[in-house]
Structure formats: structure tokens, C-alpha cells
């Protein structure tokens, strides 16, 4: 039985280093060596670093002896997993059949293997063949700050081996078998016990192992071994759980240093926002809200909630809102940790492009302006006057309330005072008052007689006498 899949394996060999937001990542790797190490018990060994004379798997102690100024950072598995998932989201641009490999070191001095595996067989036609798809993959990955290595093979495990060995694309099971047979066993990342057993018994290449039949391999290496070999070579199916983006978005980024200047914060944030956009696109949803929390030494938190009226997939919208808000009110303290959170999403509506659609695009323009105004002035600073079903004048309106009324309203002044002011009547008031008694059911009952009065210059005033204590108040202006 042979499978007809084709897998693209994207390995992230420097992920332990690149997942940490270390500023000196790129510049001058020789100046001050920077390495990330894994630890088991008291043993520490290097698993990522850019210094040309420090190899992966080297004991940290020997590195420190040779380079006294080395900066050694422990690996942050949570950060690596989050970064791997972000790449997985981006890979949705190629196919929706994605498997993440996040293999820990098999033993002391071994490296982890972290890769995004994509079943590209269903997408080949869309991208005009393998070459077109690989072009697309490289341009997608070019937007990421990660080192990547690519390989293509008919099986998931085969592609993983090919990427470690640096093989050119393997189109079919025959090519896979013949090229893999030439490879030293170390590329296969088999369990160390099995690998050592085979090496010690004179097997150097995979071809040496393939000469044996399944029964003898099972007898010596366990029942699992021939099955794994069959999956590797494509003679047995290799079902895996597909990676799906989590239903809620959480992303945390630890900064190496505290950043005071909010302009400087925008650089790491842009990366996180881009990841968020890839997440939205992978799920084919849009967001209206994104919460950003800045923390300092994990204690002082400052939260910023960015809202858009129109659901969007464009992280640039949120970045512009944030910039608008920080322009007006910068963050109050330096930040050493960034966290993004989004919980609510809406299904994406494909944009309707219409020939005569002016009103709609005006609405879009207004919505985006309203978002920017709220971002800069505060959420409560932009609203629509609305009505509320209450007879008490101060409760008959509300922010963003009802916009039309079923019952006709008596005449009301266009200006309402924020709170009624004491007022002294100078001349007797003509005309019958409008009597309003209401609110006996809650905390603010009223019993008032409302009059139209004239001010000193003849302007129209809306005044009332409180029937409970006889005092006069001014509540509105007519003009």
C-alpha cells in the first residue's frame, strides 16, 4: 500500500534562539557569543547559537571555558511552542493539512527537532506545481524572523529526514527509498537505544537496515520498529492529528530588556501583530477586539484594549489604533513582557465589491475613523445621543440608546444641563406647567412642575419647581 501524499517539511533549526526576543540576535554573532542551552539534571548543552566555533551539542561548561564572555540563556519551551504555532498558522497559506513536530532532545547532548509539516499534495495545482508552491512558501517564510530549512518528500517522516540531511525534493516513494538508503543512521532520529544497537552491529546507512526483513527487525528492535520504517518509506499510512489554531488567541513575548520608549515597543509588537493576522487568516475569522498587556517584572500590568467597529483580519488596523492611542497617552511604565489576547471572533464575510457602493464605503471610512477617535480620546468619548424610555428628563436620553421613539414626546430643549442648577424665579411664570412625577420605584423619584422661562437677555430656559420642597432648578436651554 502506498500513499500519494507529498509533504513539505519546514525545519526551524534556530528556533530556541529565535523564539526569544533577544536584541543581539543578528548583529555580530562573533563579538559576544550567545547560546541557548538545554538542561537535564546537572548537564547543560548548547542547542542553538550562531557562533561559528560553538557547535550544537557541545557541553556548556566547555563552551564557557573557551569563551568566558559567552552569554548562555536557558531554552524557553513555551516561547518555542508559541512561535512554532505561529509558523503553523502562517502555513495555512499553503494548505490546511498541517502537523507540527516539536521533538525534545532524545538524550543528553542531542538537539530538539522543531518543524512544521505541510501536506501539500492537495495544493499543488493551486500554486501551479511544486516550484510555484515552494516560491510561495519561501516568500511567506521571508516575512518571519526565523531561519528555515525546507525539504519535500512523499511521507511526513521522510521529509523530516530529508530536511535534516539537506536533500533536494524527493518526488516519489522510489526516490525516497533510494536516497534515504544512502543516509547515515544519525539523520533518522530513531530512539538512541535502537540507533546505538544498529551502529554497534555494523549498520552505518539506512540501506544496511533495509536489507533485513520486518520479522527480524521486530525481534531485535521491538514490534514498533518495522511499522515506523514502513511509515517512513510510505508503505504504511501515517495518520497524525492535524494542527488547528487554538479557539482563543494568547501570545506572550518576553523582552530581553525593559523598553521605555513606546516607539521602540512597536518593533516587537509588529511581529506579534503579524502573527495575529496569520492566526486570523488561518482560522478564516475576523476580530473586533485585541487586548494588549504590558508588564514589568511580571507585576505591574497595563492593559490596552483595541476595538474596531468593523471586524477585520488586518493586524495593521490594530497597530494604527495602538499608535493613535499611545500618541495621545503613552504607556506609563517601561515594559519587559508583552501579551496579546483575543477571545471573540466573527466569521469572515468576504468583502462585497459593488459597482455603486458609495454609502457603504462612507460607512467603512466613518467606522475606521470612529475607532481611531475612540483609541485616542478613550472609549467613552464618542457616542450617539439616544433615547431611553423614562419620563424623568435626565433619564430620557442615553448614550448610544434607542434612536427612534414610538410615543410622541412633549417639546424638549436641545441643551440639557449635566445636573440641574438652583434657579431663582424673577417674574411669575405664565402658562400651565408640565407635571412630571415618576421614578417612585427606584432611588431617584421626582415630582416636578416644568415651565418655560426667560433669562436676563430673553433666552429660553427650561426650569422646574420641585413639588416636594418648592425649590426651583434650571435643567435645560431652549436655544
Amino acid at each position, binding site marked *: 500500500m502506498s500513499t500519494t501524499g507529498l509533504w513539505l517539511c519546514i525545519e526551524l533549526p534556530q528556533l530556541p534562539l529565535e523564539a526569544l526576543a533577544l536584541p543581539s540576535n543578528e548583529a555580530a554573532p562573533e563579538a559576544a557569543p550567545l547560546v541557548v542551552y538545554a538542561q537535564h539534571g546537572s548537564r547543560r548543552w548548547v542547542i542553538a547559537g550562531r557562533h561559528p566555533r560553538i557547535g550544537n551539542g557541545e557541553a556548556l561548561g566547555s563552551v564557557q571555558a573557551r569563551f568566558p564572555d559567552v552569554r548562555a540563556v536557558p531554552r524557553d519551551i513555551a516561547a518555542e511552542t508559541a512561535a512554532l504555532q505561529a509558523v503553523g498558522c502562517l502555513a495555512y497559506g499553503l494548505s490546511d493539512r498541517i502537523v507540527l513536530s516539536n521533538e525534545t532532545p532524545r538524550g543528553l547532548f542531542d538537539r530538539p527537532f522543531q518543524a512544521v509539516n505541510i501536506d501539500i499534495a492537495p495544493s499543488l495545482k493551486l500554486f501551479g506545481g511544486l516550484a510555484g508552491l515552494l516560491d510561495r512558501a519561501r516568500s511567506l517564510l521571508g516575512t518571519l524572523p526565523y531561519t528555515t530549512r525546507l525539504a519535500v518528500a512523499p511521507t511526513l517522516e521522510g521529509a523530516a529526514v530529508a530536511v535534516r540531511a539537506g536533500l533536494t525534493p524527493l518526488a516519489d516513494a522510489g526516490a525516497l527509498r533510494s536516497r534515504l538508503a544512502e543516509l547515515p543512521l544519525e539523520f533518522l532520529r530513531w530512539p538512541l537505544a535502537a540507533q546505538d544497537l544498529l551502529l554497534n552491529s555494523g549498520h552505518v546507512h539506512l540501506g544496511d537496515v533495509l536489507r533485513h526483513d520486518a520479522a527480524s527487525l521486530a525481534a531485535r528492535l521491538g514490534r514498533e520498529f518495522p511499522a515506523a520504517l514502513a511509515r517512513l518509506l510510505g508503505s504504511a499510512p501515517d495518520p497524525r492529528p492535524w494542527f488547528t489554531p487554538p479557539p482563543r488567541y494568547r501570545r506572550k513575548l518576553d523582552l530581553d530588556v525593559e523598553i521605555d520608549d513606546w516607539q521602540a515597543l512597536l518593533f516587537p509588537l509588529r511581529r506579534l501583530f503579524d502573527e495575529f493576522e496569520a492566526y486570523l487568516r488561518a482560522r478564516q475569522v475576523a476580530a473586533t477586539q485585541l487586548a494588549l498587556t504590558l508588564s514589568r517584572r511580571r507585576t505591574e500590568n497595563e492593559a490596552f484594549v483595541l476595538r474596531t467597529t468593523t471586524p477585520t483580519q488586518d493586524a495593521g488596523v490594530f497597530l494604527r489604533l495602538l499608535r493613535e492611542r499611545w500618541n*495621545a497617552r503613552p504607556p506609563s511604565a517601561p515594559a519587559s513582557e508583552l501579551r496579546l489576547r483575543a477571545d471573540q471572533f466573527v466569521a469572515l464575510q468576504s468583502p462585497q465589491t459593488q459597482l455603486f457602493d*458609495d*454609502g457603504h*464605503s*462612507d*460607512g467603512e*471610512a*466613518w467606522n475606521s*475613523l*470612529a475607532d*481611531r*477617535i475612540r483609541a*485616542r*480620546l*478613550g472609549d*467613552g*468619548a*464618542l*457616542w*450617539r*445621543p*439616544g*433615547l431611553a424610555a423614562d419620563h424623568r428628563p435626565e433619564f*430620557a*436620553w*442615553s448614550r448610544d*440608546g434607542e*434612536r*427612534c*421613539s414610538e410615543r410622541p*414626546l412633549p*417639546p*424638549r*430643549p*436641545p*441643551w*440639557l*444641563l*449635566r445636573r440641574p442648577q438652583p434657579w431663582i424665579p424673577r417674574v411669575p411664570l405664565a402658562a400651565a406647567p408640565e407635571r412630571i412625577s415618576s421614578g417612585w420605584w427606584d432611588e431617584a423619584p421626582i415630582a416636578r412642575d416644568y415651565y418655560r422661562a*426667560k*433669562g436676563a*437677555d*430673553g*433666552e*429660553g*430656559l427650561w426650569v422646574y419647581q420641585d413639588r416636594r420642597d418648592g425649590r426651583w432648578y434650571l435643567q*435645560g*436651554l*431652549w*436655544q
Partner: protein
Amino acid sequence: MSSRPLPESLLQRTDLWVGSRLAAVAAESTGHAALDRLLPGGGWPLGALSEVLVPRPGVGEMQLILPLLARLSQAGRRVAFVAPPLIPYAPALLAAGVDLDLCWVAEPASAVDCVWAIEQMLRCPGIGAVAGWLASADERVQRRLQLAAEDNGSGGGAIGLLIRPPQARRQPSVAALRLAITASADGPIVEVLKARGGRVGQTARLAA
């Protein structure tokens, strides 16, 4: 006392402006007939800034601008109050004919934000008019707002209304129209202080 009428051939020339007439300016009726007669184009100039000087809230500025806001919002264009000194009372807005769906209020905390909000709104396509309460607005600010009103993408331009204290009367103004309101027992009196392409010094009384 009347001068000899000009020959008809001269009157028909479009490049000749006759001082006793109002220039043809694109404008939107104020909704007050007596006032419209005094204004070039017969109303608020489109794509321009107009200033209304008021000594204090409630002397007639709402009566002056509500007909405009009602008509624009009924035509599907947005209208906005920026930094109003009191609460624009929704029941009265509705009664005046304002479509509450398209009527917005912004409450900026500072003068800088206030100018920013007015400018951004004036630039937004689909906006009809923005009424902004600004205590001080130097010439630079006024030019910014004037440009924003002109630039407005949605054809014809937006109407910018700056409601300012009477002290502003002494400052130079780039506004195309400048009115001052005083209260009176028989209704607010509107004086035309400046009208590009029109005559100044005349007054109109809004119905009480």
C-alpha cells in the same frame, strides 16, 4: 437714493462681481429664511469653515444649527458635535428632525484633541457637518480645519461650524462666514460679521 442700473450686457458677465449682489457660492440653506437672504449662496458655505460667536450656551446657537443638521442627516450624511458645553438632548434632536443614527458626539479631553477630532471628522467622506466648540483657535488651526473641510472626499465638501466665544471677534479669521448671536426676548439675533462674497453688518432675527 439709487444709482443708475448697470447695462444688462455687463450684468451677464460672469467675471464681474457687483457689490450690491451676493456672490454665487455653493451653500446649504440654514433653514432660517431671513438669514439665508443675507448669506452668499443662501446659506452655510459648503467645503468651508463658518464661525459662530456666542457669549454663552443657549443664546440661540442650537436653534441656528439644528435645521442644517436635521436636513443633512436626513440626506444620509453624518453630523457631529465636538466638545459641546452641555448635553445635546436626544429627545429634542429627534423632534428637530435629526436622524439619531447619523448624529455623533465626541468629547475630547483637551483642546489639541478637540482640533484633531474636528479635523479628522471634516476629512471623513460622508460627513455633512461638524459643529465644534473651541475656545481658542489660532490662524494655523483655522487653516488646518478650513483645508480639512475643503478636502472632504464626498463631493461638495463638508460644513465646519466653529462655535467660539465673542472674544474671538478681535482675532483675524480665515472662516468664510462669521456670525455672532445675541439673545433677545423676541428670538436670537444673528449678525453677519464676515461673509466671503457677501455684505457684512446686517442682522436677522430667528423666530422666537
